[in-house]
């Protein structure tokens, strides 16, 4: 079960992809007094997973499916090794171009759903970090052909595909990260212990599973119909946090 092990690696917070430096707006939400105790944290996580988390997971699923043509073209030469090298490279280039175009269209759709410039910058930066580390961790031709500055969920989709995960598991990974990131940050930011923080995550298990299913359905459909699921307080928190000089987390 290669994909099960790969899933656990991708979802592991210890995977060095830069996410540990971010609290997903929780630090600022605490500073603003919007989150003050464990109940508030639980609410914060629930809101995040059903909005930003679900939307990002849907875009990861869309990216996973958008790289289909490239992955099939990659697999093709192995099956027909007698084919002329020229036609191979031509079809390879064509699939590279159309895959890049599809990803850029998805990126534009995701950016249009991300009104906060701070969150767009963070998304592109985390995407860059993830791509950079995954190129070393698990080199693959697809990772060499991704357009620059893709938002992180799209890189997640491509990485999930390369690691042999299903699109639904890739969605679940994003949703897992959407709550574990701020929940583990909470331990450093609030007077709660790690048991409470992880208790909050476990309490959300059914919500996470349901959101992953919805995200998978949306991601397999028309990208233009992926819901924007706006979270204005998260947008405000990201913008306020950028202007804050004293901060523990980058976002």
């Amino acid at each position, binding site marked *: 079960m290669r994909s099960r092990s790969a899933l656990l690696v991708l979802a592991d917070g210890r995977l060095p992809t830069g996410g540990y430096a971010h609290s997903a707006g929780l630090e600022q939400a605490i500073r603003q007094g919007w989150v003050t105790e464990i109940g508030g944290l639980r*609410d914060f996580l629930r*809101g995040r997973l059903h909005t930003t988390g679900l939307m990002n997971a849907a875009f990861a699923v869309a990216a996973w499916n958008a790289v289909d043509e490239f992955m099939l073209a990659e697999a093709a030469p192995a099956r027909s090794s007698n084919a002329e090298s020229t036609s191979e490279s031509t079809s390879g280039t064509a699939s590279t171009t159309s895959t890049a175009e599809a990803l850029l269209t998805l990126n*534009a759709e995701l950016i249009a759903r991300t009104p906060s410039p701070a969150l767009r910058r963070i998304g592109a930066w985390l995407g860059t970090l993830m791509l950079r580390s995954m190129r070393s961790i698990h080199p693959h031709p697809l990772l060499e052909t991704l357009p620059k500055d893709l938002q992180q969920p799209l890189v997640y989709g491509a990485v999930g595909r390369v690691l042999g995960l299903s699109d639904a598991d890739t969605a679940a990974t994003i949703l897992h990260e959407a709550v574990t990131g701020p929940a583990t940050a909470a331990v450093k930011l609030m007077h709660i212990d790690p048991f409470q923080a992880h208790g909050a995550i476990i309490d959300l298990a059914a919500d996470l599973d349901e959101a992953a299913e919805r995200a998978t359905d949306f991601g397999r459909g028309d990208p233009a119909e992926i*819901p924007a699921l706006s979270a204005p307080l998260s947008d405000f928190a990201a913008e306020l946090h950028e202007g804050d000089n004293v901060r523990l987390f980058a976002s």
Partner: protein
Amino acid sequence: MFDSSLPETWALNPTGSASGMTCRASVATSTDGTGSSGRTRSRIDGLRRQAPLVPRPTGASGFEPFVDGDPDIARVALTTAAAGPLGGDHYIFDVHVGAGSTLLLREVSATLVLPGAHGDPSLMHCRVTVESGGTLIWVPEPVIAAQGCHHTHRVDIDLAEDARLFYREELLLGRHGEEPGSLSSRLNVRRGGRALSIQRFDLGPAGKGFDTPSVVGGALGVGSVVIVEPDGGLPDATAIADPKSALLPIDDTCVQVNSLGDDGLALRKRLDAALAALGEPWGRETGWSAVPR
């Protein structure tokens, strides 16, 4: 168990809706020579009404974003000739701003969405096209989600590359002191077919996690403004006057304002303040006025 979820996509069915009535109305404008101001004059050349949606030509009143007092633009006020939308109702409102013309669209009253007898889902779908060089200024009154409603409010705006837009939206969760109904508000602004500003607020009982500190918290008013100005000149940096309101640049020619309020008045004040800070021609510091907005 009652399914409180809102339909994801609702096929546009001109012959009937879930259980209530179907209504279609439309407005179209085009250019009509040169007006007294020396600028292009716009005229209304299509106005289709079907109660409860009744668009009426109207005159200038109060502060008008971008077109303030311009005598040569087309002005239409949308009136509701009967209660609604009620549960099961299905409204379609089409707006077509022809090349080079300017339309200011307002509403006479707020839209109060009621559950009707059976609490079936209701839909208001606005389909808007703004052609090359056209300008749409749309300042609707609030959409109020009364207890028990299951309403989808969808606004699709397709802009030509050089079209101009001012769109304002105020969503209120319940009437005063009332638990809110479910409201899914979806705004899709596309330019040249490409996504520009896309928002969706799933609020009330069907909006999972909406009342949390990462989404809208305890706010009962959720509002936004989208401004598209092809000539540029919009701010390129975020302006965040207070923690519940922000002006967010989308690109060189588009900004979005998002605000929350504990009630409708607080929301309106925050949106007005953000627009006043943006300055002319989009907003102005206004004191009390007997003329509403």
